[in-house]
Protein backbone atom coordinates (compact mmCIF):
# COMPACT_ATOMS: atom_id res chain seq x y z
CA UNK A 1 0.00 0.00 0.00
CA UNK A 2 1.40 3.37 -0.95
CA UNK A 3 1.62 5.97 1.79
CA UNK A 4 -1.28 8.37 2.06
CA UNK A 5 -0.63 12.04 2.57
CA UNK A 6 -2.32 13.46 5.68
CA UNK A 7 -2.35 17.23 5.92
CA UNK A 8 -3.44 18.95 9.13
CA UNK A 9 -4.39 22.56 8.59
CA UNK A 10 -2.77 24.78 11.20
CA UNK A 11 -4.02 28.06 9.75
CA UNK A 12 -5.53 30.57 12.16
CA UNK A 13 -9.17 29.45 12.10
CA UNK A 14 -8.34 25.76 12.36
CA UNK A 15 -5.90 26.55 15.14
CA UNK A 16 -8.53 28.48 17.10
CA UNK A 17 -11.01 25.65 16.65
CA UNK A 18 -8.60 23.03 17.93
CA UNK A 19 -6.13 21.82 15.28
CA UNK A 20 -3.45 21.54 17.96
CA UNK A 21 -5.46 18.77 19.62
CA UNK A 22 -5.12 16.83 16.34
CA UNK A 23 -1.38 17.24 16.28
CA UNK A 24 -1.31 15.84 19.81
CA UNK A 25 -3.09 12.73 18.52
CA UNK A 26 -0.47 12.42 15.83
CA UNK A 27 2.29 12.64 18.42
CA UNK A 28 0.68 9.78 20.34
CA UNK A 29 0.37 7.40 17.37
CA UNK A 30 2.41 4.19 17.30
CA UNK A 31 5.44 4.13 15.03
CA UNK A 32 3.71 1.48 12.95
CA UNK A 33 0.75 3.79 12.34
CA UNK A 34 3.03 6.73 11.65
CA UNK A 35 4.94 4.70 9.06
CA UNK A 36 1.78 4.23 7.01
CA UNK A 37 1.25 7.92 6.40
CA UNK A 38 3.13 10.97 5.31
CA UNK A 39 2.11 13.70 7.74
CA UNK A 40 2.34 17.34 6.97
CA UNK A 41 1.28 20.53 8.74
CA UNK A 42 -0.22 22.84 6.24
CA UNK A 43 -0.96 26.55 6.26
CA UNK A 44 -4.55 27.66 5.65
CA UNK A 45 -6.28 25.52 2.99
CA UNK A 46 -8.51 28.52 2.30
CA UNK A 47 -11.65 26.38 2.60
CA UNK A 48 -12.71 27.47 6.10
CA UNK A 49 -13.54 30.93 4.82
CA UNK A 50 -16.03 29.41 2.39
CA UNK A 51 -18.32 26.74 3.71
CA UNK A 52 -16.26 24.05 5.40
CA UNK A 53 -16.23 23.90 9.18
CA UNK A 54 -12.79 23.93 10.84
CA UNK A 55 -10.66 22.18 12.01
CA UNK A 56 -9.90 20.71 8.60
CA UNK A 57 -7.68 17.90 7.44
CA UNK A 58 -6.96 16.46 4.00
CA UNK A 59 -6.16 12.84 3.23
CA UNK A 60 -4.73 12.51 -0.28
CA UNK A 61 -6.52 15.72 -1.14
CA UNK A 62 -9.90 14.66 0.26
CA UNK A 63 -11.22 17.23 2.73
CA UNK A 64 -12.62 16.31 6.15
CA UNK A 65 -14.27 19.01 8.24
CA UNK A 66 -15.05 19.67 11.92
CA UNK A 67 -12.49 17.02 12.82
CA UNK A 68 -12.09 16.33 16.51
CA UNK A 69 -9.37 14.11 18.00
CA UNK A 70 -11.59 10.99 18.11
CA UNK A 71 -12.69 11.46 14.52
CA UNK A 72 -9.12 11.98 13.43
CA UNK A 73 -8.05 8.68 14.98
CA UNK A 74 -11.05 6.89 13.42
CA UNK A 75 -10.27 8.30 9.99
CA UNK A 76 -6.69 7.07 10.18
CA UNK A 77 -7.67 3.63 11.50
CA UNK A 78 -10.29 3.20 8.81
CA UNK A 79 -7.77 3.98 6.10
CA UNK A 80 -5.30 1.48 7.54
CA UNK A 81 -7.97 -1.26 7.54
CA UNK A 82 -8.85 -0.60 3.92
Amino acid at each position, binding site marked *: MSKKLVEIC*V*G*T*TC*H*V*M*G*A*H*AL*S*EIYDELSDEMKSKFDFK*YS*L*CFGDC*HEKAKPPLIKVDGELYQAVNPDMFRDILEKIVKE
Partner: protein
Amino acid sequence: MRKLVLNKVITGRRRLYLELASMYLDGTIKDEIPKLPAKLIPEEHGEGRIRVFYEREIMKEKIKYALCLDHSKVKNLELYEIKDELDSILDGDSELIDREKEIDIIDKVCNECPGGRFYVTDLCRNCVARSCMSSCPKNAIKLVGGKVSIDQNLCVKCGMCEKACPYHAIMKLGTPCELACGASALQRKDEGTMSVKQDNCVSCGACYVECPFGAIETPSQMMQVLHKIESKEEVIAIFAPAAVAQFGRMVNMNQFKEALVEFGFASAVEVTVGADIVAEKEAQHLLDHPDETMLTSCCPSFVSHIRKNHEQLADMISPVASPMIETYLKIKEENPNAKVVFIGPCISKKKEARENTMPDYVITFEEMASLFAAKKIEPGEMKGFDLSDSTSEAWKFASSGGVTNAVVHYLKELTGKDTVQINAEIANGLKECDSKLKEIKNKKICPNVLEGMACFGGCISGPGVLIDPKIANISLKKM
Protein backbone atom coordinates in the same frame (compact mmCIF):
# COMPACT_ATOMS: atom_id res chain seq x y z
CA MET B 1 0.32 21.70 35.05
CA ARG B 2 -3.21 21.68 33.76
CA LYS B 3 -4.02 19.71 30.65
CA LEU B 4 -5.89 21.88 28.21
CA VAL B 5 -8.91 19.87 27.10
CA LEU B 6 -10.67 21.50 24.23
CA ASN B 7 -14.21 21.00 25.51
CA LYS B 8 -17.44 22.38 24.10
CA VAL B 9 -17.49 25.32 26.48
CA ILE B 10 -14.17 26.48 25.02
CA THR B 11 -14.96 25.78 21.36
CA GLY B 12 -18.40 27.35 21.79
CA ARG B 13 -16.90 30.51 23.20
CA ARG B 14 -14.29 30.71 20.44
CA ARG B 15 -16.92 30.29 17.73
CA LEU B 16 -18.94 33.03 19.36
CA TYR B 17 -15.96 35.40 19.39
CA LEU B 18 -15.16 34.55 15.79
CA GLU B 19 -18.73 35.04 14.54
CA LEU B 20 -19.21 38.26 16.47
CA ALA B 21 -16.01 39.77 15.11
CA SER B 22 -16.85 38.61 11.56
CA MET B 23 -20.30 40.18 11.77
CA TYR B 24 -18.73 43.44 12.90
CA LEU B 25 -16.26 43.38 10.01
CA ASP B 26 -19.05 42.59 7.54
CA GLY B 27 -21.00 45.55 8.89
CA THR B 28 -24.00 43.33 9.67
CA ILE B 29 -23.61 43.15 13.45
CA LYS B 30 -26.66 45.27 14.30
CA ASP B 31 -29.06 43.24 12.21
CA GLU B 32 -27.52 39.87 12.86
CA ILE B 33 -26.81 39.96 16.58
CA PRO B 34 -30.29 38.85 17.68
CA LYS B 35 -29.95 35.86 15.32
CA LEU B 36 -26.50 34.86 16.56
CA PRO B 37 -27.62 32.26 19.18
CA ALA B 38 -29.56 30.38 16.50
CA LYS B 39 -26.63 30.55 14.12
CA LEU B 40 -24.24 29.16 16.71
CA ILE B 41 -26.63 26.50 17.97
CA PRO B 42 -28.46 25.28 14.85
CA GLU B 43 -31.60 23.09 14.88
CA GLU B 44 -29.66 20.07 13.64
CA HIS B 45 -27.64 20.23 16.85
CA GLY B 46 -28.34 16.54 17.38
CA GLU B 47 -29.39 16.72 21.00
CA GLY B 48 -33.08 17.37 20.89
CA ARG B 49 -35.25 20.48 20.86
CA ILE B 50 -35.10 21.32 24.55
CA ARG B 51 -31.34 21.12 24.55
CA VAL B 52 -31.17 23.47 21.53
CA PHE B 53 -33.43 25.94 23.30
CA TYR B 54 -31.36 25.69 26.48
CA GLU B 55 -28.00 26.15 24.76
CA ARG B 56 -29.27 29.13 22.79
CA GLU B 57 -30.31 30.81 26.03
CA ILE B 58 -26.81 30.23 27.42
CA MET B 59 -25.29 31.66 24.24
CA LYS B 60 -27.45 34.75 24.56
CA GLU B 61 -25.92 35.55 27.93
CA LYS B 62 -22.42 34.81 26.65
CA ILE B 63 -22.85 37.31 23.82
CA LYS B 64 -23.45 39.98 26.44
CA TYR B 65 -20.12 39.14 28.10
CA ALA B 66 -18.35 39.12 24.73
CA LEU B 67 -19.58 42.72 24.34
CA CYS B 68 -18.13 43.58 27.78
CA LEU B 69 -21.53 44.25 29.32
CA ASP B 70 -22.27 44.35 33.03
CA HIS B 71 -24.51 41.35 33.47
CA SER B 72 -26.34 42.79 36.44
CA LYS B 73 -27.56 45.59 34.17
CA VAL B 74 -28.41 43.54 31.07
CA LYS B 75 -29.57 40.17 32.35
CA ASN B 76 -33.20 40.88 31.55
CA LEU B 77 -32.54 42.47 28.17
CA GLU B 78 -33.11 40.63 24.90
CA LEU B 79 -30.41 40.96 22.26
CA TYR B 80 -32.58 43.12 20.00
CA GLU B 81 -32.91 45.57 22.90
CA ILE B 82 -29.13 45.93 23.05
CA LYS B 83 -28.94 46.62 19.31
CA ASP B 84 -29.61 50.36 19.55
CA GLU B 85 -27.02 50.77 22.27
CA LEU B 86 -24.41 48.95 20.17
CA ASP B 87 -22.55 52.02 18.86
CA SER B 88 -21.86 53.39 22.30
CA ILE B 89 -20.99 49.88 23.56
CA LEU B 90 -18.35 49.53 20.86
CA ASP B 91 -17.09 53.04 21.60
CA GLY B 92 -16.79 52.03 25.22
CA ASP B 93 -19.00 54.88 26.47
CA SER B 94 -22.15 52.94 27.26
CA GLU B 95 -23.55 52.84 30.77
CA LEU B 96 -24.01 49.12 30.28
CA ILE B 97 -20.28 48.34 30.08
CA ASP B 98 -18.80 46.39 32.97
CA ARG B 99 -16.32 48.44 34.99
CA GLU B 100 -16.31 46.49 38.22
CA LYS B 101 -15.63 42.79 37.95
CA GLU B 102 -13.62 40.30 35.98
CA ILE B 103 -15.25 37.09 37.18
CA ASP B 104 -18.99 36.64 37.25
CA ILE B 105 -21.41 33.75 37.53
CA ILE B 106 -24.38 33.66 35.18
CA ASP B 107 -27.10 32.77 37.61
CA LYS B 108 -29.45 31.13 35.14
CA VAL B 109 -26.69 28.99 33.63
CA CYS B 110 -25.30 27.74 36.96
CA ASN B 111 -26.43 24.14 37.36
CA GLU B 112 -26.53 24.18 41.17
CA CYS B 113 -24.01 21.31 41.36
CA PRO B 114 -24.85 19.29 44.47
CA GLY B 115 -21.47 19.94 46.00
CA GLY B 116 -20.14 18.12 49.02
CA ARG B 117 -22.78 15.39 49.15
CA PHE B 118 -22.02 11.69 49.28
CA TYR B 119 -23.78 9.27 46.93
CA VAL B 120 -23.94 5.50 46.59
CA THR B 121 -23.11 4.77 42.95
CA ASP B 122 -23.96 1.83 40.66
CA LEU B 123 -20.70 0.19 41.67
CA CYS B 124 -22.39 -0.94 44.91
CA ARG B 125 -22.54 -4.75 44.92
CA ASN B 126 -25.05 -4.92 47.72
CA CYS B 127 -22.58 -6.93 49.79
CA VAL B 128 -23.20 -8.86 52.97
CA ALA B 129 -20.84 -6.88 55.18
CA ARG B 130 -22.45 -3.47 54.58
CA SER B 131 -19.53 -1.75 56.28
CA CYS B 132 -20.93 1.56 55.09
CA MET B 133 -23.94 1.18 57.39
CA SER B 134 -21.81 0.10 60.33
CA SER B 135 -19.37 2.96 59.85
CA CYS B 136 -21.98 5.71 59.70
CA PRO B 137 -22.13 7.61 62.99
CA LYS B 138 -25.56 9.07 62.20
CA ASN B 139 -27.36 6.00 60.87
CA ALA B 140 -27.88 7.93 57.65
CA ILE B 141 -27.47 4.86 55.43
CA LYS B 142 -30.73 3.06 54.96
CA LEU B 143 -32.01 0.23 52.84
CA VAL B 144 -34.25 1.45 50.07
CA GLY B 145 -35.70 -1.25 47.87
CA GLY B 146 -33.05 -3.73 49.05
CA LYS B 147 -30.15 -1.39 48.27
CA VAL B 148 -28.25 1.03 50.45
CA SER B 149 -28.92 4.72 50.07
CA ILE B 150 -27.79 7.81 51.95
CA ASP B 151 -30.42 9.94 53.63
CA GLN B 152 -29.15 13.43 52.81
CA ASN B 153 -31.08 14.95 55.70
CA LEU B 154 -29.17 12.86 58.25
CA CYS B 155 -25.76 12.76 56.52
CA VAL B 156 -23.12 14.98 58.15
CA LYS B 157 -20.66 14.48 55.26
CA CYS B 158 -17.96 12.90 57.43
CA GLY B 159 -16.88 10.51 54.67
CA MET B 160 -16.63 7.42 56.90
CA CYS B 161 -18.79 5.33 54.52
CA GLU B 162 -16.65 6.32 51.54
CA LYS B 163 -13.57 4.99 53.34
CA ALA B 164 -15.35 1.86 54.53
CA CYS B 165 -16.53 0.66 51.11
CA PRO B 166 -14.07 -1.82 49.55
CA TYR B 167 -15.54 -1.21 46.07
CA HIS B 168 -15.16 2.58 46.21
CA ALA B 169 -18.85 2.65 45.42
CA ILE B 170 -19.54 5.69 47.58
CA MET B 171 -18.42 9.00 46.18
CA LYS B 172 -18.37 12.62 47.12
CA LEU B 173 -19.62 14.86 44.38
CA GLY B 174 -17.69 18.14 44.44
CA THR B 175 -18.60 21.51 43.01
CA PRO B 176 -15.92 22.10 40.35
CA CYS B 177 -15.70 25.87 40.79
CA GLU B 178 -15.44 25.62 44.55
CA LEU B 179 -12.77 22.92 44.35
CA ALA B 180 -10.72 24.96 41.88
CA CYS B 181 -10.79 28.18 43.90
CA GLY B 182 -7.72 28.85 46.01
CA ALA B 183 -9.15 31.97 47.64
CA SER B 184 -12.39 30.58 49.16
CA ALA B 185 -14.27 33.05 47.01
CA LEU B 186 -17.21 30.91 45.97
CA GLN B 187 -20.30 30.60 48.08
CA ARG B 188 -23.65 29.00 47.61
CA LYS B 189 -26.67 31.25 47.65
CA ASP B 190 -29.89 30.21 49.35
CA GLU B 191 -31.37 29.43 45.93
CA GLY B 192 -28.65 26.82 45.36
CA THR B 193 -26.67 28.61 42.67
CA MET B 194 -23.10 29.75 43.29
CA SER B 195 -21.90 33.33 43.61
CA VAL B 196 -18.52 35.05 43.76
CA LYS B 197 -17.53 36.74 47.00
CA GLN B 198 -15.83 39.73 45.40
CA ASP B 199 -14.08 40.56 48.70
CA ASN B 200 -12.10 37.32 48.44
CA CYS B 201 -11.90 36.79 44.67
CA VAL B 202 -8.50 37.41 43.09
CA SER B 203 -9.73 37.00 39.48
CA CYS B 204 -7.32 34.16 38.68
CA GLY B 205 -9.94 32.44 36.51
CA ALA B 206 -9.51 28.94 37.93
CA CYS B 207 -13.30 28.61 38.35
CA TYR B 208 -13.87 29.97 34.84
CA VAL B 209 -11.64 27.20 33.48
CA GLU B 210 -13.30 24.47 35.53
CA CYS B 211 -17.06 25.12 35.27
CA PRO B 212 -18.46 22.34 33.03
CA PHE B 213 -21.54 24.42 32.22
CA GLY B 214 -19.64 27.51 31.17
CA ALA B 215 -21.61 29.43 33.78
CA ILE B 216 -18.62 31.52 34.80
CA GLU B 217 -17.73 34.31 32.43
CA THR B 218 -15.48 37.29 32.08
CA PRO B 219 -16.37 40.48 30.20
CA SER B 220 -14.24 40.75 27.06
CA GLN B 221 -12.85 43.96 25.56
CA MET B 222 -12.09 42.38 22.19
CA MET B 223 -14.91 44.12 20.35
CA GLN B 224 -13.92 47.54 21.71
CA VAL B 225 -10.32 46.90 20.61
CA LEU B 226 -11.47 45.79 17.17
CA HIS B 227 -13.65 48.89 16.87
CA LYS B 228 -10.77 51.21 17.82
CA ILE B 229 -8.55 49.59 15.20
CA GLU B 230 -11.18 49.64 12.47
CA SER B 231 -11.81 53.32 13.29
CA LYS B 232 -8.13 53.86 12.34
CA GLU B 233 -7.10 55.04 15.79
CA GLU B 234 -3.51 54.58 16.93
CA VAL B 235 -3.48 51.40 19.00
CA ILE B 236 -0.29 49.67 20.12
CA ALA B 237 -0.19 46.00 21.13
CA ILE B 238 2.02 44.73 23.93
CA PHE B 239 2.13 40.96 24.31
CA ALA B 240 3.05 38.70 27.20
CA PRO B 241 5.99 36.29 26.95
CA ALA B 242 3.49 33.43 27.31
CA ALA B 243 2.65 34.13 23.63
CA VAL B 244 5.40 31.69 22.66
CA ALA B 245 3.81 28.77 20.76
CA GLN B 246 0.25 29.98 21.43
CA PHE B 247 -0.45 30.48 17.75
CA GLY B 248 0.59 27.03 16.64
CA ARG B 249 3.71 25.22 15.65
CA MET B 250 4.10 27.10 12.38
CA VAL B 251 4.10 30.55 14.03
CA ASN B 252 7.12 32.05 15.75
CA MET B 253 7.19 35.30 17.73
CA ASN B 254 8.59 37.27 14.79
CA GLN B 255 5.62 36.26 12.68
CA PHE B 256 3.17 36.93 15.49
CA LYS B 257 4.58 40.43 15.80
CA GLU B 258 4.12 41.09 12.09
CA ALA B 259 0.61 39.60 12.23
CA LEU B 260 -0.39 42.10 14.92
CA VAL B 261 0.70 44.98 12.70
CA GLU B 262 -1.00 43.40 9.68
CA PHE B 263 -4.13 43.18 11.82
CA GLY B 264 -4.07 46.92 12.32
CA PHE B 265 -2.04 47.71 15.42
CA ALA B 266 0.29 50.68 14.92
CA SER B 267 3.09 48.58 16.38
CA ALA B 268 3.64 45.56 18.59
CA VAL B 269 6.06 45.27 21.49
CA GLU B 270 7.06 42.29 23.63
CA VAL B 271 6.38 42.63 27.35
CA THR B 272 9.76 40.97 27.86
CA VAL B 273 11.06 44.54 27.52
CA GLY B 274 9.26 45.37 30.77
CA ALA B 275 10.21 42.02 32.29
CA ASP B 276 13.90 42.86 31.97
CA ILE B 277 13.31 46.23 33.65
CA VAL B 278 11.38 44.53 36.48
CA ALA B 279 13.98 41.80 37.05
CA GLU B 280 16.80 44.33 37.19
CA LYS B 281 14.92 46.64 39.59
CA GLU B 282 13.96 43.70 41.80
CA ALA B 283 17.56 42.48 41.88
CA GLN B 284 18.62 45.97 42.98
CA HIS B 285 15.88 46.00 45.62
CA LEU B 286 17.20 42.71 47.01
CA LEU B 287 20.73 44.12 47.20
CA ASP B 288 19.46 47.22 49.00
CA HIS B 289 17.29 45.25 51.44
CA PRO B 290 19.15 42.00 52.10
CA ASP B 291 17.27 41.15 55.29
CA GLU B 292 13.76 41.60 53.98
CA THR B 293 11.40 39.24 52.22
CA MET B 294 10.18 40.34 48.79
CA LEU B 295 6.93 38.99 47.39
CA THR B 296 6.93 39.20 43.59
CA SER B 297 4.49 41.61 41.99
CA CYS B 298 4.13 40.33 38.43
CA CYS B 299 1.13 38.04 39.01
CA PRO B 300 -1.83 40.31 39.81
CA SER B 301 -3.81 37.46 41.40
CA PHE B 302 -0.95 36.72 43.79
CA VAL B 303 -0.72 40.42 44.71
CA SER B 304 -4.47 40.61 45.09
CA HIS B 305 -4.49 37.49 47.28
CA ILE B 306 -1.93 39.08 49.60
CA ARG B 307 -3.87 42.34 49.83
CA LYS B 308 -7.26 40.72 50.31
CA ASN B 309 -6.47 37.62 52.33
CA HIS B 310 -3.05 38.20 53.96
CA GLU B 311 -3.08 41.92 54.58
CA GLN B 312 -0.30 41.88 57.22
CA LEU B 313 2.17 40.85 54.52
CA ALA B 314 1.25 43.62 52.08
CA ASP B 315 4.37 45.65 52.99
CA MET B 316 6.53 42.86 51.59
CA ILE B 317 5.13 43.13 48.07
CA SER B 318 7.84 44.19 45.64
CA PRO B 319 7.72 47.98 45.08
CA VAL B 320 8.40 47.36 41.38
CA ALA B 321 5.43 47.45 39.01
CA SER B 322 4.57 44.47 36.80
CA PRO B 323 6.21 43.89 33.39
CA MET B 324 2.91 44.91 31.75
CA ILE B 325 2.90 48.31 33.47
CA GLU B 326 6.63 48.89 32.88
CA THR B 327 6.22 48.14 29.18
CA TYR B 328 3.18 50.40 29.00
CA LEU B 329 5.04 53.30 30.62
CA LYS B 330 7.95 52.90 28.22
CA ILE B 331 5.62 52.96 25.22
CA LYS B 332 3.67 55.93 26.47
CA GLU B 333 6.89 57.95 26.76
CA GLU B 334 7.37 57.69 23.01
CA ASN B 335 3.71 57.52 21.95
CA PRO B 336 1.73 59.68 24.38
CA ASN B 337 -1.44 59.65 22.27
CA ALA B 338 -1.65 55.98 21.47
CA LYS B 339 -4.01 53.53 23.14
CA VAL B 340 -2.26 50.41 24.45
CA VAL B 341 -3.66 46.88 24.51
CA PHE B 342 -2.11 44.10 26.58
CA ILE B 343 -2.47 40.66 24.99
CA GLY B 344 -1.90 37.78 27.36
CA PRO B 345 -3.18 34.54 28.85
CA CYS B 346 -4.67 36.28 31.85
CA ILE B 347 -8.02 37.45 33.19
CA SER B 348 -6.47 38.96 36.28
CA LYS B 349 -4.51 41.45 34.18
CA LYS B 350 -7.87 43.05 33.35
CA LYS B 351 -8.25 43.78 37.02
CA GLU B 352 -4.70 45.11 37.29
CA ALA B 353 -5.30 47.39 34.31
CA ARG B 354 -8.60 48.63 35.72
CA GLU B 355 -7.10 49.40 39.13
CA ASN B 356 -4.04 51.16 37.70
CA THR B 357 -6.01 52.76 34.83
CA MET B 358 -3.34 51.43 32.48
CA PRO B 359 -3.00 49.94 29.91
CA ASP B 360 -6.19 50.91 28.11
CA TYR B 361 -7.36 47.39 27.23
CA VAL B 362 -6.55 43.80 28.10
CA ILE B 363 -7.47 40.86 25.89
CA THR B 364 -6.53 37.16 25.97
CA PHE B 365 -4.74 35.04 23.38
CA GLU B 366 -8.03 33.28 22.77
CA GLU B 367 -9.69 36.59 21.92
CA MET B 368 -6.76 37.75 19.80
CA ALA B 369 -6.70 34.51 17.82
CA SER B 370 -10.43 34.80 17.19
CA LEU B 371 -9.90 38.34 15.91
CA PHE B 372 -7.10 37.10 13.63
CA ALA B 373 -9.39 34.40 12.29
CA ALA B 374 -12.21 36.88 11.66
CA LYS B 375 -9.87 39.14 9.72
CA LYS B 376 -8.26 36.18 7.93
CA ILE B 377 -4.81 37.00 9.26
CA GLU B 378 -2.42 34.08 8.73
CA PRO B 379 0.73 34.65 10.80
CA GLY B 380 2.23 31.40 9.49
CA GLU B 381 2.48 32.87 5.99
CA MET B 382 4.43 35.95 7.11
CA LYS B 383 8.17 36.64 7.05
CA GLY B 384 8.25 38.13 10.53
CA PHE B 385 9.52 41.27 12.24
CA ASP B 386 12.67 41.57 14.32
CA LEU B 387 12.15 41.14 18.04
CA SER B 388 13.19 43.73 20.61
CA ASP B 389 16.35 43.06 22.57
CA SER B 390 15.45 41.13 25.65
CA THR B 391 17.10 38.37 27.63
CA SER B 392 16.11 34.75 27.35
CA GLU B 393 15.32 34.97 31.09
CA ALA B 394 12.68 37.63 30.41
CA TRP B 395 10.73 35.22 28.16
CA LYS B 396 10.75 32.68 30.97
CA PHE B 397 8.70 34.99 33.21
CA ALA B 398 5.85 33.03 31.64
CA SER B 399 6.53 29.85 33.57
CA SER B 400 6.74 29.13 37.27
CA GLY B 401 10.24 29.80 38.60
CA GLY B 402 11.04 32.12 35.70
CA VAL B 403 10.88 35.37 37.63
CA THR B 404 13.29 34.12 40.27
CA ASN B 405 15.59 32.87 37.54
CA ALA B 406 15.63 36.30 35.88
CA VAL B 407 16.23 38.10 39.17
CA VAL B 408 19.20 35.81 39.85
CA HIS B 409 20.52 36.61 36.36
CA TYR B 410 20.45 40.34 37.15
CA LEU B 411 21.91 39.81 40.63
CA LYS B 412 24.91 38.21 38.95
CA GLU B 413 25.13 41.08 36.50
CA LEU B 414 24.82 43.81 39.15
CA THR B 415 27.31 42.24 41.55
CA GLY B 416 29.66 40.99 38.84
CA LYS B 417 29.78 37.58 40.49
CA ASP B 418 29.36 34.22 38.78
CA THR B 419 27.28 32.71 41.55
CA VAL B 420 24.86 34.35 43.93
CA GLN B 421 23.22 32.83 46.96
CA ILE B 422 19.64 33.76 47.56
CA ASN B 423 16.98 32.00 49.52
CA ALA B 424 14.09 31.78 47.10
CA GLU B 425 10.75 30.04 47.51
CA ILE B 426 8.56 29.33 44.53
CA ALA B 427 4.81 29.03 45.00
CA ASN B 428 3.17 27.35 42.03
CA GLY B 429 -0.60 27.82 41.91
CA LEU B 430 -2.82 29.86 44.21
CA LYS B 431 -3.24 27.10 46.79
CA GLU B 432 0.52 26.82 47.20
CA CYS B 433 0.81 30.63 47.29
CA ASP B 434 -1.65 30.59 50.16
CA SER B 435 0.25 27.99 52.19
CA LYS B 436 3.64 29.67 51.60
CA LEU B 437 2.20 33.02 52.69
CA LYS B 438 0.89 31.37 55.85
CA GLU B 439 4.34 29.90 56.50
CA ILE B 440 5.90 33.36 56.18
CA LYS B 441 3.27 34.74 58.53
CA ASN B 442 4.06 32.03 61.09
CA LYS B 443 7.80 32.62 60.59
CA LYS B 444 8.30 29.03 59.47
CA ILE B 445 10.14 30.22 56.38
CA CYS B 446 11.95 33.49 55.79
CA PRO B 447 13.04 33.64 52.14
CA ASN B 448 14.58 36.61 50.32
CA VAL B 449 12.10 36.09 47.53
CA LEU B 450 8.74 34.40 47.36
CA GLU B 451 7.71 34.08 43.74
CA GLY B 452 3.99 33.52 43.53
CA MET B 453 1.96 32.60 40.47
CA ALA B 454 -1.74 31.92 40.79
CA CYS B 455 -1.89 29.57 37.79
CA PHE B 456 -0.23 26.22 38.32
CA GLY B 457 2.76 26.20 35.97
CA GLY B 458 2.78 29.97 35.53
CA CYS B 459 1.24 32.20 32.86
CA ILE B 460 1.42 29.49 30.18
CA SER B 461 -1.37 27.75 32.14
CA GLY B 462 -3.53 30.87 32.26
CA PRO B 463 -7.27 30.87 31.55
CA GLY B 464 -6.91 32.53 28.14
CA VAL B 465 -4.37 30.23 26.49
CA LEU B 466 -4.73 28.35 23.21
CA ILE B 467 -2.10 25.66 23.64
CA ASP B 468 -1.60 22.91 26.15
CA PRO B 469 0.75 24.31 28.84
CA LYS B 470 3.15 21.37 28.50
CA ILE B 471 3.71 22.08 24.81
CA ALA B 472 4.05 25.81 25.50
CA ASN B 473 6.68 25.07 28.13
CA ILE B 474 8.79 23.10 25.66
CA SER B 475 8.77 26.02 23.22
CA LEU B 476 9.47 28.50 26.01
CA LYS B 477 12.63 26.66 27.01
CA LYS B 478 13.98 27.24 23.51
CA MET B 479 13.62 31.03 23.65
